[in-house]
């Protein structure tokens, strides 16, 4: 019971702030609401016994990426864009198409509501979530991990090169 209440609390928080992210005029307000949505998602992760992903979400997303976003919003001049139209000319078409896509996916989920999924057997989520994640990450997924680090290096160099005034 408490699980469901917590889930609905976090889910409502996430959805309401996501809607506000998309509809607010001021990009700073959008960023603040995106932070709320990300924190609510972090709560969902905690409920799903993913403590490491929870803390990574807070430190990396809320502490890192969102600070970067707010920084860039301050760098680009917002006063001009605030007075301009916020939505595309074809926004209604886009909205209808996106909602149709969502309805299709919801219908697919609804069709599969009675399917019994069979996953890989013998899994166990231990209480030491961080150790377990670390073991799987460095034993089964060592190559993807190294590729991800190369990707981060490339992204870092690319961001520096592009944001530089004169190369």
């Amino acid at each position: 019971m408490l699980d469901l209440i917590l889930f609905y609390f976090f889910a409502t928080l996430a959805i309401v702030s996501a809607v506000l992210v998309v509809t607010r005029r001021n990009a700073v307000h959008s960023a603040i609401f995106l932070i709320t949505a990300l924190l609510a998602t972090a709560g969902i992760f905690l409920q799903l016994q993913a403590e490491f992903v929870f803390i990574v979400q807070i430190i990396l997303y809320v502490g890192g990426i969102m600070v970067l976003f707010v920084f860039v919003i301050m760098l680009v001049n917002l006063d001009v864009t605030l007075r301009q139209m916020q939505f595309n000319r074809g926004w209604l078409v886009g909205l209808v198409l996106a909602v149709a896509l969502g309805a299709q996916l919801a219908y697919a989920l609804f069709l599969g509501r009675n399917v019994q999924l069979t996953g890989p057997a013998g899994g166990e989520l231990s209480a030491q979530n961080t150790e377990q994640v670390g073991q799987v990450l460095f034993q089964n997924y060592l190559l993807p991990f190294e590729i991800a680090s190369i990707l981060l290096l490339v992204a870092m160099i690319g961001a520096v090169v592009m944001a530089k005034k004169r190369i």
Partner: protein
Amino acid sequence: MVPTSHYLFLSLALFTIGVVGVVTRRNVIIILMSIELILNAVNINLVAFAHLWKQVSGQVFAIFIITDAAAEAAVGLGIIIAFFRNRETVLADEMDLLKW
């Protein structure tokens, strides 16, 4: 114990809101934020299935997706800064240098 379908529907709702943001907004920064919303919806799915099957691989993939999101945000915001310096705009439909 919350059924897994609840998480799937939450993820679906966040994904749809993100797609709406990407296709309707003009401000490029808000489009990037909507992409972050979409990536978060994917993460909820992965972690929910990791919990359903008691496999930790889903959480590892969620971490990879967060890494990708960080890389994408860094490069995207770099592009926005470079473009704003040249054209003085952050609106997506005014970025039409390649359009004749």
